[in-house]
């Protein structure tokens, strides 16, 4: 497979998003300011940045849930049968009125796949996320970690061109988070067809370095790309080994220095005191 510029899976060109203030008097907010980058096929990209930096906006534009003010974002479509993207949402987005099975099969049902095929795919992903016993359970019977597993399974089962994830594990406790990150990598690496291109938004550097092939750091508003780093850590990765590896430390420090500047800038612009730690 060639990885020329034309082969990019996602092309972001001069993307700008301005939110008009809700009240007439309030100033418009520039969430994304002239952003340009490309994501090659099969890359796991993490977008990090201070909270409210427009990274979720970037993801929502990619997902087609928000429209850009100017510029463009193009996802290359290789198979017209496939959906362009599927998203794993921030908080619990599992539909409470559907069983686990119906939730996982939601995208397949919307696309009108044959029943038998839907059932096969749902059973396979039910097993992949370890919820075979809970197929007929309703979300209120599940823990937070199990719900996010359903959400991940729903996105993967849909077999999209690209996967989008908006801080999917942010609300989970530390143990569950690590468990689910590992599972996510296992499913992503063990993908049947091809390795999926992933855009993953997070505010956690640890998470980004554990998961990603590449990390993009965004600035505080107006959101721009501040840093673009390749994460050249070998896979499969193990959290414990990773944390003690000098390469990890070097990458962490590089991104952290840049991130800290942005956080300070953001706090200052809001008139907050901030004691910078070094």
């Amino acid at each position: 497979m060639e990885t020329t510029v034309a082969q990019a899976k996602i092309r972001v060109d001069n993307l700008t998003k301005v939110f008009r203030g809700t009240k007439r008097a309030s100033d418009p907010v520039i969430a994304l300011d002239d952003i340009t980058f490309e994501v090659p096929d099969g890359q796991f990209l993490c977008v990090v940045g201070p909270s409210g930096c427009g990274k979720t906006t970037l993801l929502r534009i990619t997902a087609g849930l928000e429209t850009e003010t100017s510029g463009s974002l193009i996802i290359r479509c290789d198979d017209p049968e496939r959906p362009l993207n599927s998203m794993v949402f921030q908080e619990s987005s599992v539909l409470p009125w559907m069983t686990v099975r119906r939730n996982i099969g939601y995208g397949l049902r919307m696309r009108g796949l044959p029943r038998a095929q839907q059932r096969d795919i749902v059973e396979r992903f039910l097993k992949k996320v370890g919820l075979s016993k809970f197929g007929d359970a309703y979300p209120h019977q599940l823990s937070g970690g199990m719900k996010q597993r359903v959400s991940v399974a729903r996105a993967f089962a849909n077999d999209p061109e690209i996967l989008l994830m908006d801080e999917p594990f942010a609300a989970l406790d530390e143990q569950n988070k690590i468990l689910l990150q590992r599972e996510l990598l296992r499913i992503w690496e063990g993908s049947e067809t091809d390795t999926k291109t992933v855009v993953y938004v997070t505010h956690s550097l640890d998470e980004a370095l554990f998961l990603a092939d590449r990390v993009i750091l965004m600035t505080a508003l107006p959101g721009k790309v501040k840093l673009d780093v390749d994460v050249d850590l070998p896979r499969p990765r193990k959290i414990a080994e990773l944390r003690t590896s000098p390469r990890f430390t070097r990458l962490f420090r590089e991104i952290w220095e840049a991130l800290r500047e942005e956080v300070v800038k953001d706090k200052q612009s809001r008139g907050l005191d901030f004691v910078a730690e070094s």
Partner: protein
Amino acid sequence: MVSLANKLSQLLDPLKNEEQRNQIISILSPVALLLLWELMVRSGWLDARFFPPPTVIAARFWELATSGILAEHIGISLARVFAGFLAGTIPALLIGLTMGLFPLVRAILEPMVAATYPIPKLALLPLMLLVFGSGELSKVVTIGLGCFFLVLMNTVAGVVNIEPIYLDVARNYGASKRDFYTTIALPGALPMIFTGMKLGMGVSLLLIVAAEMIGAQNGIGYMIWTSYQIFVLEDMYIGLVLMAFFGYFFTMSLSYLEKVVVPWKQQ
């Protein structure tokens, strides 16, 4: 462990007895009231013309029931209630889901709904009788209107209160307009829709009695009204008990249906 379990059951035992006692009391108390009523009429403390003793009412009930008159009144009243309930509920559901899903439709219709909702539907009965005649249609439309507003307002509120993230999920996973109705709006609003239907059912029973008092030749409301005119108050009491029974029965039926259709709702 064993002694702990023993202690626990000892602690719980009087509680259980208390529960049983309360159950028995709640069955006995209405019986006692009926007995008191009977005794007071028999001893002349209550006027038997206004408060016929329960035994006399029961005898009259038996008479009406065996002659088939009662079944006729009940049948026609229930038919009107069901027809009116469906005629009000079904359009209310469709319009309510649409208003909930599309802010533009909501902006257009909401002022009209808000303006017409407070009108007592009974006040429209003269108009209904003029427009639809004294046949079945006037009653069905009156009841339909009563149900319509209650189901409509609750459906709209139910859809509007659905977490926006579920709408994002539907959009992201390629839901069609129809899928938005069937997989998001309807199931998400169902708990509120049931609240609306229960209220609508209550209003239906209220309206049917009033409508039959004025413009009908049969039905429970007609029975109650004629009992006043010919001064046979036993019939009125029978009508009252029947309405209470149906009110209770329909509310319980809807609650049961809700449990079946909304299994995902946390109890």
